[in-house]
C-alpha cells in the first residue's frame, strides 16, 4: 500500500508497510498512476507511450529503473508483515496511569470533556489513601515494566497539590524496592501556580502540560472562571516563569481549537511569541450539536490552516525562530516500533485512569461513563475481560483502519473519540481521521522541505 500526494510542490510517496518516505520527480510520480501494488520487470503496456509526450525516453527509462529499485528493496508496495503480530497481541502490563486527583476545577471551560471539572460525578478531591492505593495498584500490575508514568490530572490537579506531593513522595519511596522508575507529569490550567509550586514541578515532573488556547481573545472566550472572566492574564506570566526555569525538561503549552478559531496557526504563533517553543493546539472533542464544535464543513478551512502553519514553521525555522508543534513532530527513522504502532495509546490495557473514589476507567476521557467502569482499587475489583477487549483492539481489528495508509502514524486513533462519536471503540470517527491524515501529510512535507 502506498499513499501519494503533492503539497508545496513536493510529490511525496509513503510506503505504508515499510515506513519509507520518498520525494519523487514528476516522471516517476506520474508512473504510479499506471501501477497497481507492484512494479513489474516490464513496464505496464501503454505507460511509456502515454508519458512519451512529456518526458524523453532516457528520463522514463531511468525513472522506471528507480521505481524497480525501490520495489526490490522493499521500499515501495512492500508487503504487509504485521497482521500476524496483531493476532498475537494480548494483555500487557499496566505502565501508565492518569490520576484524577481533583474532580473539581477553578475554571469552567465551555468545551471541557470533564463536564467543567467534575466529570458529571460531583466535585471531589482524591484522598491520599486513594492515591497511595493507586501507586500500589500500578506497581502490582506493571509486571516487568521499569518505566511507569503517572499523570496528575483533573479537573485541576493543583487544587489538591498537598496530596500530589504526598503521592510523589510515596511513589518515590517504592521505586527502589520494586525496581521501578516513576515519571510524573501534570496537566494544569496554571491558575494556582506559585513560585514554590513552579520550583517543585520543574524538579519532580518529567513533563508538564500547560493549558492555554493562544491569543487572549481566543483563550478568554472559552477558558473562563465561574464568574465568566478570562484566565489569560493570570496564567501567561506564570507559564513564562515556569518555562524560563525548566531547563531542558519537556513541557507543552497546549491549546484547543474550535470552530471559533479555525485560524489556529495564529494561536500557535502567538504562543511561540510568548516564548514557548513546545506547543500543541488540538481539535476540540465535543458534541457536534454545540456551536463551537468542528463539523465536516469546517474541514477545508482546517486543512488550509494546517498547511499555513506548516509553512509558517518552515519559514520561522529558516529565520532561526522555529518551534515544535506537537502534531507535526514525526521521527521517520527512530520513532516507535511497529508493535507499538499496532495499538497506539494502550488505553484500557497499558493505560488506565483512577478517579478520586478509586474507580478505574480505560482512560480519562471515559470517566463518568458507567458502562466503561473497570473496577475500583479500594474494593479490589478489576474487570479483566474488559482489559482484554482493549488489548486486542488494534489497527487490524478496526475495519476502517486496516486498509488505511495512515494506520502506523495514528495507530487507530483515540478509542474514547470512537466511543463518543460512534458508540463503538472499533469504529473510526471520520472527522478526527481526516484531520489526523492532514497533519501527517503536512508533517512529512516539512521533512521533505527540510531535506532540500
Amino acid at each position, binding site marked *: 500500500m502506498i499513499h501519494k500526494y503533492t503539497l508545496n510542490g513536493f510529490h511525496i510517496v509513503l510506503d505504508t508497510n515499510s515506513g*519509507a*518516505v520518498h520525494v519523487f520527480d514528476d516522471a516517476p510520480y506520474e508512473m504510479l498512476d499506471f501501477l497497481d501494488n507492484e512494479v513489474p520487470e516490464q513496464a505496464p503496456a501503454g505507460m511509456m507511450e502515454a508519458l512519451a509526450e512529456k518526458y524523453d525516453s532516457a528520463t522514463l527509462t531511468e525513472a522506471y529503473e528507480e521505481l524497480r529499485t525501490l520495489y526490490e528493496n522493499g521500499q515501495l508496495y512492500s508487503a504487509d508483515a504485521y497482521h500476524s503480530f496483531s493476532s498475537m497481541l494480548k494483555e500487557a502490563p499496566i*505502565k*501508565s496511569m492518569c490520576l484524577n486527583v481533583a474532580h473539581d476545577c477553578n475554571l469552567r471551560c465551555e468545551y471541557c470533556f470533564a463536564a467543567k471539572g467534575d466529570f458529571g460525578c460531583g466535585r471531589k478531591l482524591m484522598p491520599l489513601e486513594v492515591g497511595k492505593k493507586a501507586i500500589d495498584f500500578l506497581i502490582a500490575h506493571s509486571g516487568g515494566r521499569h518505566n511507569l508514568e503517572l499523570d496528575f490530572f483533573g479537573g485541576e490537579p493543583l487544587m489538591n497539590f498537598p496530596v500530589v506531593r504526598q503521592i510523589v513522595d510515596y511513589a518515590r519511596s517504592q521505586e527502589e524496592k520494586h525496581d521501578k522508575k516513576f515519571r510524573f507529569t501534570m496537566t494544569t490550567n496554571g491558575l494556582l501556580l506559585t513560585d514554590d509550586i513552579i520550583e517543585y514541578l520543574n524538579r519532580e515532573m518529567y513533563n508538564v502540560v500547560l493549558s492555554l488556547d493562544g491569543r487572549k481573545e481566543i483563550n478568554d472566550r472559552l477558558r473562563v472562571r465561574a464568574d465568566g472572566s478570562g484566565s489569560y492574564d493570570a496564567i501567561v506570566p506564570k507559564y513564562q516563569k515556569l518555562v524560563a526555569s525548566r531547563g531542558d525538561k519537556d513541557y*507543552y503549552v497546549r491549546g484547543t481549537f474550535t470552530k471559533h478559531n479555525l485560524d489556529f496557526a495564529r494561536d500557535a504563533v502567538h504562543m511561540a511569541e510568548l516564548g514557548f517553543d513546545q506547543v500543541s493546539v488540538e481539535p476540540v472533542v465535543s458534541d457536534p450539536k454545540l456551536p463551537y464544535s468542528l463539523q465536516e464543513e469546517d474541514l477545508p478551512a482546517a486543512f488550509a490552516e494546517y498547511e499555513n502553519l506548516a509553512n509558517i514553521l518552515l519559514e520561522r525555522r529558516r529565520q532561526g525562530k522555529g518551534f515544535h508543534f506537537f502534531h507535526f513532530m*514525526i521521527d521517520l527513522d527512530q520513532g516507535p516500533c511497529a508493535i507499538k504502532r499496532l495499538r*497506539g*495509546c494502550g488505553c484500557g490495557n497499558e493505560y488506565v485512569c483512577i478517579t478520586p473514589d478509586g474507580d478505574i476507567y480505560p482512560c480519562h476521557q471515559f470517566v463518568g461513563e458507567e458502562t466503561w467502569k473497570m473496577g475500583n482499587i479500594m474494593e479490589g475489583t478489576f474487570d479483566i475481560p474488559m482489559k482484554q477487549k482493549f488489548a486486542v483492539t488494534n489497527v487490524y481489528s478496526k475495519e476502517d483502519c486496516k486498509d488505511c495508509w495512515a494506520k502506523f502514524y495514528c495507530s487507530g486513533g483515540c478509542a474514547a473519540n470512537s466511543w463518543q462519536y460512534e458508540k463503538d471503540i472499533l469504529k473510526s470517527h471520520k472527522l478526527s481521521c481526516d484531520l489526523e491524515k492532514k497533519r501527517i501529510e503536512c508533517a512529512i512535507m516539512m521533512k521533505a522541505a527540510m531535506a532540500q
Partner: protein
Amino acid sequence: MKQIKTLNQATLKQSAVKGGCGECQASCQSACKTSCTVANQKCENEDNQ
C-alpha cells in the same frame, strides 16, 4: 538515485522483530490527552535503534 529521494531508512519491519518492549511513553500522556498521534513518540529500546 536521481529522480527519487528517499527521506528515511524505512526500518519499520525490522522494528517489529525486536519491538514491543512497552517501555515507551503512552502517547496520550505526552501532550494531547484528547487525540492520538503515535508516530511522534520516542523509542526507549536501545536495541531497536
